[in-house]
C-alpha cells in the first residue's frame, strides 16, 4: 500500500518573461515558504534556488512559466517549484550540471549550486524543444 502519496495542497502559476517577473517570483516563493513553515535559512535557500532557475528561464529559455505548489508527503510538508520554457534547451546536461558559476566555456547556469540548495532536483531538456526543471524542498522535522 502506498502511504507516501504526494498531494498538492495549493498550486499557482507565474509567467516568467522579464526581470521584474523574477522579482515577483522571489516574493511569491518567499510567501509560500513562510506558509509551509520553513526556518529563515531554509526559506532563503529555496528562494535563492528559485531565483537562479527563474532567471535561466528568462535569459536562456526565452521566457516561460513557473508553477509553485505546496505539497504534502504523508506527514511532511514541502514546496515544489516547476519551471518550464520552450527555449533552445541545453545540449550537454551532464556538463551543465557540473559547471559552476565561473563559466570558462560552460554556460555558467549555476545549476549545480541551485541543486545543492534543494532536497529534490530534476531537470529535463531537449535541444530545440525546451527545458523543464523541478525543485522540491521538504520541511524537516
Amino acid at each position: 500500500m502506498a502511504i507516501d502519496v504526494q498531494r498538492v495542497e495549493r498550486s499557482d502559476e507565474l509567467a516568467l518573461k522579464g526581470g521584474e517577473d523574477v522579482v515577483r517570483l522571489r516574493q511569491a516563493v518567499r510567501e509560500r515558504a513562510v506558509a509551509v513553515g520553513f526556518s529563515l535559512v531554509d526559506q532563503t535557500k529555496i528562494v535563492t534556488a528559485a531565483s537562479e532557475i527563474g532567471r535561466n528561464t528568462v535569459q536562456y529559455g526565452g521566457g516561460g512559466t513557473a508553477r509553485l505548489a505546496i505539497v504534502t508527503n504523508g506527514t511532511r510538508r514541502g514546496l515544489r517549484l516547476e519551471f518550464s520554457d520552450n527555449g533552445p534547451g541545453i545540449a550537454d546536461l551532464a556538463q551543465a550540471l557540473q559547471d559552476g558559476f565561473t563559466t570558462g566555456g560552460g554556460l555558467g547556469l549555476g545549476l549545480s549550486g541551485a541543486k545543492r540548495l534543494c532536497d529534490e532536483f530534476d531537470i529535463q531538456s531537449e535541444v530545440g524543444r525546451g527545458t523543464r526543471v523541478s525543485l522540491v524542498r521538504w520541511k524537516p522535522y
Partner: protein
Amino acid sequence: MNTATAALAETLRKHESEILADWLKEQAAVPSRRNAVHDAETRTLSRDFLNAVQEALNGSGADNVGGSGYSRARDLLAELSASRAVQGQSPSETAMFVFSLKQPLFTWLRRDLEGDKLAEAMWAATLVIDRLGLFTTEAFQKSREEVIQRQQRELLELSTPVVELWDGILALPLIGTLDSGRTQVVMESLLEKIVQSGSTIAIIDITGVPTVDTLVAQHLMKTVAAARLMGADCIISGIRPQIAQTIVHLGVDLSAVTTKASLADAFMLALRRLGSRIEAAPARV
C-alpha cells in the same frame, strides 16, 4: 464498484448514527488517558472518519486504500496519530481507534445481510479497516520521530552555547560528535551571535570533538566561510594530534583558516588582533 462494497457502503449509510454510537462505546472501553476535551475531539473525529470512509467506498471501492479516494480518511488518521503521539499514547492505543470499528460494523452488517453476501461484505470491511489500522501505526511512528527530532534539535541548541569571551571575541566550544544536522544548528547560532554581539572574531574550539571526517571538516569550512562573508574571522583551536593527522590525510585544505593548538592560544591571538594584550599586574608592595 462490486456488490460487496456496495452493500458495505449501504449499511454504513443506513445505520451511520447507530454504528457511530456503538463505535464510540467500543473506543471508550479501551483503557487510555482521556478527558472531556479528548472525548469531544474523538466524537468529531470518529464522525468525520465514518463520512470519509463512506465517501471513499463510494468513490474507489475497498481495494485501493493507498489511493487518492482514501486521502481524506488517511489525513484524518494522520491528524489523530499526531495528536495521540504528542499526548504520549502508545501506537496500539491509537490503532485501536480504527480496529474497534470492526465489531459495531459487523453487528450491523449481520442485520442487513446474510449468507455469501454477508461474508463478502465482512471481508471487504476487514480489508479496509486492517489497512487503515496499519496506516495509523505508520503515521503514528512518523509523528513520534518528528517529536523526537524536534526535541533533539532543542537539546542541541541548548548544548552548543556561544560564549562572549571578550569584547568582540566569541568562543564556540564544540563537544561531542558533529553530524550534518547539528553542524547546521551550530553554524546558525554562531552567525546570529556574531550579529547580536557585533563580534569580529569567533574561536571554534574542537577539543571535545572525538573525530573529524571529511563531512565535518567541510561543515567547519562552510561555517568559517559564512562568518567571513559577514565580516568576522574564525580561529579553530583544540586540534588534537590525531585530528591533525586525519585532516592532512583527508587532504582538507586549512591554509585559509588560522588554527591554534589551544583555546588559550587562540584567545591571545584574538586579543592581539584587536589591539589588546594581557599583562601581569604590577606587584603590590
